[in-house]
């Protein structure tokens, strides 16, 4: 897990009520750059999300660490995406595989709102990243 993640989630963790947690998540989403329309292609859509999530998972030039960029048409999912990006970006594939994202979300007090059902696409987003990492490790 990256330091960025610790930093950006501080305020979520400390939010006393779910309303503030969502507010912080949505604020986090706003910090993500907007994906140019030309990149919002169907191939980049994460399947199984009720909202639209475009995600690109690549490796940096040295092929050693992960670069994830993405966007969503909803505020909440974009915020969750930002969380996921903060969690995984810059990690090596080996590190990616070891992370249990749900555990991290649990620590933030989010799990009751982020069940692994298809709706919010959390599961699909994490799977897309893990699959890429897995392929690299093999």
């Amino acid at each position, binding site marked *: 897990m990256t330091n960025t993640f610790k930093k950006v989630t501080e305020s979520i963790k400390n939010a006393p009520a*779910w*309303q503030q947690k*969502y*507010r912080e998540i*949505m604020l986090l989403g706003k910090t993500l750059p907007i994906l140019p329309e030309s990149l919002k292609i169907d191939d980049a859509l994460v399947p199984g999300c*009720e*909202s639209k999530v475009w995600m690109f998972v690549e490796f940096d030039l040295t092929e050693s660490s992960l670069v994830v960029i993405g966007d969503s*048409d*909803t*505020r*909440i*999912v974009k915020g969750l995406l930002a969380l996921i990006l903060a969690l995984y970006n810059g990690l090596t594939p080996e590190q990616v595989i070891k992370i249990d994202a749900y555990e991290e979300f649990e620590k933030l007090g989010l799990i*009751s*709102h982020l069940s692994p059902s298809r709706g*919010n696409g959390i599961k699909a987003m994490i799977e897309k990243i893990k699959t890429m990492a897995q392929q690299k490790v093999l």
Partner: protein
Amino acid sequence: MTTLMKLMTVLEFDINKIRSDFPTLNQTINGCPLVYLDSAATSQKPQSVINAITEFYTSQNANVHRGRHSLSEQATNLYEQARDKMAQYFNVFSNEIVWTKGATEAINLVANGLKKRLDKSHTIMISPLEHHANIVPWQIVSQQTGAKLVSLPLNKNGTLNTLECCDFIKQIRPTLLAITQVSNTLGNITDLSPLIRVAKEVNSLVLVDGAQGALHLKPDLRKLNCDFYVCSSHKMLGPTGLGVLYGRYEELNALDIYQSGGEMIDKVYLTHSTYRPAPAKFEAGTPNISGVLGFSAALDYLNELDHGKIQRYEQKLFNYAAKKLVMIEGITIYSNLSDNIGTLCFNFNNEHPYDLATLLDGYGVAVRSGHHCTQPLMAHLGVNGTVRASLTFYNTFEDVDIFIHSLKKCIALLD
């Protein structure tokens, strides 16, 4: 609401009694009392339905139609009695009722059953209001047979203009008109009688998608004069995994068989087989027996209530909710505010319906967001999705108050 209004409602309709019949409603979600506004997706079930299922599995469980032992006979009787009840509810004959897996399967059954009679000289007519279940099967049949698929004209506001539609039907003379009684997304009720009259004049078959209408409108199908009518138990206080196909007997029996296997056959040889007459020939395999028995209890429950009272109560509730929703700045309502079963389809400014629905859930308010399985209607309305709050007679004026109050708080959160 005023005390007088409340009092009148109580006199009319004992909502507290009703609510006590629906155990699911008495729970908290995220610490708030559940406000269930998603009955258009699936209705809650009265205790008597749950009891009927429990009783079946506790003391009656057996397969139907094939057994000589007491349990099987009992199950068979209850199963066939439920068919009688469904027929009575719709004012049709028992042998015109086929049990299916759901409204979706019922439409697929008819689409498949008509296939052999269709070619490129034929036309199937749907409307842009349809649920995917009443679109995709016809697209596929049209691709397979060459029959044309056309769509009725729809007003900008999501209602069908009766005169325009009647003219269109007269002009096109479709082989089949497949149309919904009520839009699941908007709640808008279409007055089908004039359309069916014209369709019958031009010898068109008519299939009515009653998934949303069957509970709220309790249609008399003899009067409605359609050839086929479909609905789903789970939207009518009954269990999941069960649907109904009504078919005017000659038309029903004339449909090609759909699924094949046990129960629907007469004689089977290794090389060929003969089939039983409808409805049996459309009920292959072991049916959803507990579903049918649970639904039977749901029909009993509905029959005990006065349907006129239900409708009046639902209308009051809807008007109350609509008036409050209209007043919130930034809200666009897509539903027709008259001739509506009780569904409010809306958006707030350019916010994504997903965000609103998610935040509302935090307050214990269950609404639906998305395209509601009506992508063509979404395209027609020029939106990607909406929020949908659907009311049913077990909802209260307090539910509406909480919904509106919570919605305002969610809107504030989005700012």
